[in-house]
């Protein structure tokens, strides 16, 4: 991908790799941690943990329902638990199990879904999670984190294990631009303003933060001064940051690698409507599945590139 290169961003490892490495660190610190895999550990990078701590690693086969149930039993008997798979299979194929045996009992289980969004590319729609944020945020008691780059994924991984209760961490397949340095200040529920601006705020998560930064750069050339906010925690949302953005800039555009329904945009609209109504625009996948293709081609075809944000910003500003 070339996203962010023209504004000087360099590429780091995929967020799933950053997760995998951090998981290994957590595993070294916390002897009580066990990891459950649905036979995709080489893809989700839980394999890094397995290679170090095989006795605390369980591969229950290609069976996501069973993955969650097993995780729940391990937790109920006192273990700290991480369960992982592709985001689409984890959330979609085991949702009832997550509901009943993680969210409802408020189990201290961490879930990691890799291969989120359409930027996975060539494998196509069956392997793309484009509805997982809606599914995860609809679960009472859940925390949902969508980090933007490798350093913040590392920080998020450590932070989620410090937090009591169920957490869903969403990572991606491809290499992505680096936004933060290794010792960033990352707190669950606290958005990070990655660029200040006064005309409009772009609130994004995951890969879309880098894309929003590039959009903001283009906009600045037109004299539009856009604030960019990394809303890495999609649940609970940072209400203060949203209200401040609405107040300071009077207009908001959200951007996410997810369908428009039930995602970051819907959540932000909720907060805005309740506290500070301002015009909004939404960048996301509009009621369609994607297809196979190169990540960047897909992002372009399905309306998730910097230009799409730029256009949405222009349209939204007209309503200000």
């Amino acid at each position: 991908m070339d996203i962010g290169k023209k504004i000087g961003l360099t590429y780091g490892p995929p967020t799933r790799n950053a997760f995998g490495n951090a998981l290994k660190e957590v595993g070294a610190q916390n002897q009580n941690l066990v990891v459950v895999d649905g036979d995709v550990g080489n893809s989700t990078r839980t394999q890094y943990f397995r290679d170090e701590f095989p006795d605390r690693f369980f591969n229950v086969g290609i069976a996501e329902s069973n993955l969650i149930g097993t995780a729940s039993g391990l937790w109920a008997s006192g273990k700290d638990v991480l369960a992982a798979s592709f985001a689409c299979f984890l959330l979609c194929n085991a949702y009832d199990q997550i509901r009943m045996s993680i969210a409802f009992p408020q189990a201290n289980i961490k879930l990691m879904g890799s291969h989120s969004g359409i930027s996975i590319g060539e494998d196509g729609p069956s392997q793309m999670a484009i509805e997982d944020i809606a599914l995860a945020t609809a679960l009472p008691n859940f925390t949902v984190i969508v980090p933007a780059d490798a350093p913040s994924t590392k920080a998020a991984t450590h932070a989620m294990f410090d937090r009591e209760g169920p957490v869903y961490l969403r990572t991606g397949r491809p290499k992505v631009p680096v936004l933060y340095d290794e010792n960033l200040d990352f707190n669950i529920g606290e958005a990070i303003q990655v660029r200040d601006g006064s005309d409009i705020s772009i609130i994004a998560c995951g890969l879309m933060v880098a894309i929003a930064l590039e959009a903001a750069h283009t906009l600045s050339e037109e004299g539009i001064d856009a604030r960019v906010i990394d809303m890495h925690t999609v649940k609970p949302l940072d209400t203060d940051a949203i209200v401040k953005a609405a107040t300071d800039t009077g207009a908001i555009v959200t951007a996410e690698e997810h369908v428009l329904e039930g995602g970051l945009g819907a959540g932000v609209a909720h907060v805005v409507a309740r506290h500070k109504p301002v015009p909004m625009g939404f960048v996301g996948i509009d009621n369609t599945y994607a297809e196979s293709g190169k990540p960047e081609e897909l992002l372009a075809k399905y309306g998730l590139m910097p230009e799409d944000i730029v256009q949405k910003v222009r349209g939204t500003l007209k309503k200000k």
Partner: protein
Amino acid sequence: MIKNNQSDQENIEQLQKITKKLSRQIIEITTRAGSGHPSSSLSAIEIMVALYLGGIMNYRPDEPGWPDRDRFILSKGHAAPGLYAVLAEAGYFDPEMLLTLREIGSPLEGHPNMRVLPGVEASTGSLGQGLSIGLGHALAARVDGRDFQVYVMIGDGETNQGQVWEAAMTAAKYRVSNLTAILDYNKFQQTGSVNHVMPTLEPLVEKWMAFGWHTTEINGHVFDDIFSAIRNAQATDNRPHIIIAHTLKGHGLSPFEKDDVNRKHGKPLTEEEKAQALEELEAYSYDQKITSFEQRPNPNIEPPERRQ
């Protein structure tokens, strides 16, 4: 390990008495609540009584989270009234509380909720999930070097759910010998008999054997059978064990018969039906050979186009 071996005659008579008392409670509290699943509770009652009150399970009602306790997971969560009656009798809470079944604010919810009722090991009610949860407990024992036992009760209809077979295959992979499943083979699901809804549940023993489990088939209302099956389960090494317990949905009490081919499911008895059921229960003798072995579904019936 079985705590102590109470299979002598005196103890069994005592357990039969307790069973009658708890059966009465199940019928009473569901009729009182106006909803619930008494018939599904009654088919499993002797088994739960044996586990909790027959000296099989190790547990501490005053320390429900005791790490070395044996675990019992009611995967067929709708049999909650039976579990509650047993937990009360075991000392987890005052039996008076049974009267609050399904009332708002009560920890005795329609289906077991582990967050509100001590003694409940898993929140169930969506069928198919308990065996995976039991596997998780069993693996935790291995990781932590503990030797507690895990018992999971599943319904016959519940085994329609694929997750049961996922868990079965994986439990055999991990050779968790501390995991025992108990299948309440009462021959009825929600909309009809197993023979109508899923006759190909048979051959049942062969299925579990092919999934790598040790199996024992018993009459689930006979304490001697239950005790020897549990002993069997714990004698076998390196494999999970399933006890296939032939039972009667509604315990053979006539008010639970619905029509020729069905039993009441998820319906409490009316006051009149209750009176009748309690009377039959009173007269009920364990010398009558209660069994439903002979009702085994026939997987070789004609294509069920006209049935359902």
